């Protein structure tokens, strides 16, 4: 009985989650793929594609976040729809940003279960390729900013860094290590028209960047 319950309950949860996904999430998220292949489609995207969520997100983080969602991309998605020009320069137009709805604990668990089943593009994941290492925050920031220029678009602290990309000080909490390796290796393999450049990082640098994401997360965004 215990064994049966262990099998049946997750399936029921995933089924409920599937209904929630298609009923409440599909308006802003692409659940089935493919990723946008034109700039028009890229501009129209309102939230991250979820058809490879099971290869991208950490399940425990997803369940927590869905209950208490907080903005990850300061300028929203797609950033060009949420900025305005002022005499002092472009700025985020907060009036155009909408908050992600919060789910109950049960719904968050069900949606997470359904998301984790979405494993498109597994061909891009090299399972186990990331081997945890250490990097100091100073050296990591040197690589991230001075050597590779990533800080231009990403925040490494809640109020420090660029705004058009997702914050990275929570990346290691949110994202699977092998996904980070794969995405940074070739963002366009996942998302053909995305506005993150391919910096043609070596495998060694990719590993060091993931180390840095972990070091940043360990600071708790301080």
């Amino acid at each position, binding site marked *: 009985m215990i064994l049966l319950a262990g099998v049946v309950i997750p399936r029921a949860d995933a089924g409920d989650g599937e209904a929630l996904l298609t009923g409440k999430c599909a308006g802003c998220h692409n659940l089935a793929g493919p990723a946008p*292949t*034109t*700039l*028009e489609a*890229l*501009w129209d995207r309102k939230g991250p594609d979820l058809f490879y969520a099971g290869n991208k997100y950490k399940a425990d983080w997803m369940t927590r976040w869905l209950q208490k969602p907080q903005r990850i991309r300061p*300028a929203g998605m797609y*950033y*060009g729809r949420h*900025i*305005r*020009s002022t005499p*002092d*320069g*472009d*700025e*985020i137009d907060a009036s155009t940003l909408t908050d992600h709805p919060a789910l109950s604990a049960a719904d968050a668990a069900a949606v997470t279960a359904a998301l984790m089943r979405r494993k498109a593009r597994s061909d891009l994941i090299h399972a186990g390729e990331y081997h945890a290492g250490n990097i100091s925050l100073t050296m990591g920031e040197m690589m991230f*900013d*001075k*050597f*590779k*220029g990533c*800080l*231009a*678009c990403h925040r490494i602290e809640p109020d*420090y*860094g*660029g*705004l*058009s990309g997702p914050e990275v000080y929570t990346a290691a909490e949110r994202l699977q290590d092998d996904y980070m390796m794969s995405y940074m290796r*070739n963002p*366009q393999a996942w998302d*053909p*028209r995305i*506005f993150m*450049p*391919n*910096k*043609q990082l070596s495998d060694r640098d990719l590993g060091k960047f993931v180390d840095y994401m972990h070091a940043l997360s360990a600071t708790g965004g301080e």
Partner: protein
Amino acid sequence: MKRAGRSSYAFPLLAPWGYSLLITVLCALVHSSSASAAEDGAVLYKTYCAQCHGIHGNGKGVNVRDMSVQPRDHTDAKEMSTRSDEDLFKAIKEGGQSISKSVLMPPWGPVLSDEEIHALVGYLRELCQCSHGDGK
């Protein structure tokens, strides 16, 4: 007669898979055409460049506050006219370091086709209302 006969004989044999093959090939052609179609320079600029160089190309993009080197003002005709189209193409394709400028300007060659980079160079000339060598 013989050809017509062979055709009428071949048609029913091909029908079960021939049409599906044809449709697959056509779909692939349409997909490939839309995926590789060059986008308009202004739309490309707003997608890839405006995040740093600004919606209006004035170098005041939404990302600039914490950047150690400020992005080029593409509306600055005096500065932009010192750059040839080839220099601009190289900077976009290979990044700032390729022309001894900032690493903050990434190489877009792995993302954009040469045709799209040429479209961007054309749009830069619209923004600055200038050509290489103006003002000399």
